[in-house]
């Protein structure tokens, strides 16, 4: 019996500025489209950053852009789906640059599997999370949102991805209507777990493992702190 090898290259990038991560993703999407590279997963965190999706729902930003700057946060307009959200330290981000055609996934199935990835991670810590109801894509613990999703699919290649709240400063969410949903709270793993959390690095690894398993990869290549200059050759 021949087993099909599904390879994933995982890049652990630490804290990376939003625009740099975006530029990197754009390069990787081009390379993935031309078959130069295999499926790639970026694992990282951002400094305090607010982002808007394609629909530019600026009405869900409750403070001015200059007030954001004085808080030390950036604002970016993006091409991903979804509404406004916040990214910051102690929030685990995954940006998969993968080919959906290779696995026959449409947008809906892809997003459902991303939700499952975060739900599984939560359950590793004894937290019962669930996918949102229709129209409320994301991962919830009761009525509190613990994980957000916003992706872009171009010729079957994905970019952007998910943000899972390990222990970010949740007060940053007060300056927006998160994901455009007004009457629901945002939460974090730290808030939902009774005991101490293990080291964050471990939680990032667990999130990656859940992704690897749910997307059926059987060959993982780790690239830690890859030099971004490598990609220019």
């Amino acid at each position, binding site marked *: 019996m021949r087993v099909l090898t599904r390879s994933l290259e995982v890049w652990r990038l630490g804290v990376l500025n939003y625009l740099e991560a975006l530029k990197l993703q754009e390069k990787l999407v081009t390379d993935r489209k031309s078959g130069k590279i295999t499926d790639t997963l970026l694992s990282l965190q951002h400094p305090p950053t607010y982002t808007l999706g394609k*629909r530019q729902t600026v009405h869900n930003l409750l403070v001015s852009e200059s007030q954001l700057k004085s808080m030390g946060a950036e604002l970016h307009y993006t091409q991903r*789906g979804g509404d406004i959200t916040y990214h910051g330290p102690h929030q685990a981000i995954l940006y998969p640059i993968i080919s959906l055609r290779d696995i026959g996934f*449409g*947008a*809906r199935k892809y997003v459902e599997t991303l939700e499952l990835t975060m739900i599984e991670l939560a359950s590793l810590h004894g937290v019962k999370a669930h996918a949102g109801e229709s*129209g409320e894509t994301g991962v919830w613990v009761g009525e509190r949102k613990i994980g957000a999703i916003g992706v*872009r699919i171009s*010729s079957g290649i994905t970019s952007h991805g998910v943000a899972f709240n390990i222990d970010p400063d949740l007060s940053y969410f007060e300056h927006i209507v998160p994901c455009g949903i007004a009457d629901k709270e945002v939460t974090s793993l730290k808030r939902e777990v009774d005991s101490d959390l293990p080291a964050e690095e471990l939680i990032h690894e667990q999130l990656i493992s859940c992704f690897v398993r749910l997307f059926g990869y059987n060959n993982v290549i780790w690239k830690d702190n890859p030099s971004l200059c490598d990609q220019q050759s």
Partner: protein
Amino acid sequence: MAMRMWASSTANALKLSTAIRPQFSPAFSLSRCFSTVLEGFKYANSHEWVKHEGPVAAVGITDHAQDHLGEVVFVELPDAGSVVSQGKSFGNVESVKATSDVNSPISGEVVEVNSKLSETPGLINSSPYEDGWMIKVKPSNPSELESLMGSKEYTKFCEEEAGH
């Protein structure tokens, strides 16, 4: 999905109009992947369709595509007068927090854009081959149609994709 296919074929037999059926009744084949595939249309492997209507060709996404996207909540289309190229993106749709590019199956000039989609993006789900059309193009290279799939080929293509 099996229920929907049954309802679709029954509705056709009774000449009934349902929310999921196009308003006209050309011959259509029921594919085993349970999405509607219509005769007389041409299909790209990125799941867009094109139908020649005289000097102009209408373009949209297939039933298979809309089903795999989920409920469409936002559609971004080019302006009339823009140029589109075969295989290149001309716009995008948003569903389940995913923005998916839509590629043009043919090259040419956009002569009309479906303005109903800004108010009612869900037409793409309920009527992907009829009311959910996205752009109309004056083809610059009609021979491009030959490189596209017919209904039988496209049906087979969907089945092969589903086999992953």
